[in-house]
């Protein structure tokens, strides 16, 4: 299992826009480098990417939560 960490502080989002589907659901397969979330900091968005392939085990934050740099945002279980 690996933890995906936030590269910068900000606000955590699982969806590209409020009216859209989440990037990935818990239990789904993700590829290395796949975007799984966004972090907004001062109206600038950056992508959070899976560092390895596997199954998305769980998210450690809720939509709209504040996140610190280096904080874990999701767990990916190796295939």
């Amino acid at each position, binding site marked *: 299992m690996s933890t995906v960490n936030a590269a*910068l*502080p*900000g*606000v955590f989002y699982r969806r*590209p*826009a409020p009216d859209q589907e989440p990037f990935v659901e818990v239990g789904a397969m993700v590829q290395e480098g796949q975007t799984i979330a966004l972090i*907004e900091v*001062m*109206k600038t968005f950056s992508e959070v990417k899976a560092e390895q392939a596997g199954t998305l085990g769980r998210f450690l934050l809720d939509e*709209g939560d504040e996140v610190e740099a280096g904080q874990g945002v999701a767990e990916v279980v190796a295939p």
Partner: protein
Amino acid sequence: MTGPSRVLVANRGEIAVRIIRACHAAGVEAVAVYSDADKNSRWVQLADHAVHIGASPASKSYLNAAAVLEAARSTHADAIHPGYGFLSENSRFARAVQDAGLVLVGPPPSAIELMGDKATARATAQAAGVPVIPGSAPVTDLASAQAAADQLGYPVLVKAAAGGGGRGIRPVSSAAELADVLPAAQAEARSAFGDGTSYLERALARPRHVEVQLLADDHGGAVHLFERDCSVQRRRQKLLEEAPAPGLHEETRQRIGEAAVRLARHVGYRNAGTVEFLVDEDQHFYFMEMNTRIQVEHPITEVISGVDLVAEQLRIAAGTPLSFTQDDLVPTGAAIELRINAEDPDRGFAPSPGEVTAFDLPGGPGVRVDTGLARGDRISPFYDSMIAKLICWGADRDQAYARAEQALREFRIEGVASTIPLHRRLVGNDKLRSGPVHTTWLEEQLE
């Protein structure tokens, strides 16, 4: 006429502080609103009353019209000042304010609506006899977009009809590129503004951004307070502004001011507003958009005109006629505004939230700092990155720039990165100081 006695300030940061000060100076009480993140903020302390309106993300607080209206109701405010951003150009909110029996310190909802849609705004400007950049009707599919672009001639800009603040604009230099960009531009417009309508405009070569400040009352009074040059931009975000615009011919200056007033009268405008123009190398000017609110850069107009724009907003909202005419207004000297943002210019302008551990503000003649921040405050990731605005006035441009250089030597912010080092380089730049520059000049400098 009796005006509002208690104004709810539906905003945060420096503009909330600015409005509260204007209210108090006018003998009016001010109610602040705040989110979780802003609980201990300066404007909450300055206000007579403060109401918590929700969680930290703006969508759950400052953009929540129902919560803002409830805060006004519960504190018996009789007017709402929306500032800039957030709900300031939302015509539905403006109508809801009126429906609740409150006064909006701003324009009529119909004017917000008319100017909020860029394609309609363009057509309205044209109808008012204000020159517009050659452009197309709204385009819905690639075929109509390519036909329109052929007629205009490349390069063109693809623009979101509902866009604003420089967002939703994409330059395109060929038919192939247009095919590439249009679907994405439409999707982006839909996602950002809830409306995918796009239109095309001819791209001008090396234009300047010049905008005219207006005030209009309920009694047919409408004046302009001269112009500002906002050409120093990065990714269409303004970083440094000047008033008056350097190097503008006297005749152009007069005509651009008159054109802005003509548009304001045509749409039945009231309160403070700004008409933005692009000016080409031959000093032809073209309507870009109208901002139906007070703007970030309003202080430089205040210092050259001697008019307190927010105080005038409150007076106009009270139904008071303007106390001056166009002939009474004479610009004095020159002013420059520097936007100090929590961004690191040396790291691609990376946002830099965090705690401000040192915050020493500059002073001296002609120096004004507008900020919502105090030492020890935390710059939150939830909102925009503005820390402060440094406004420097001088009897002429040289003195304004010299004072800005000195003020930047004194200005100290620690704990977060800021744009101060970039501004230090900018105010010493010969090309900028001999002015004017065009809207992509700064980006070329940064490359």
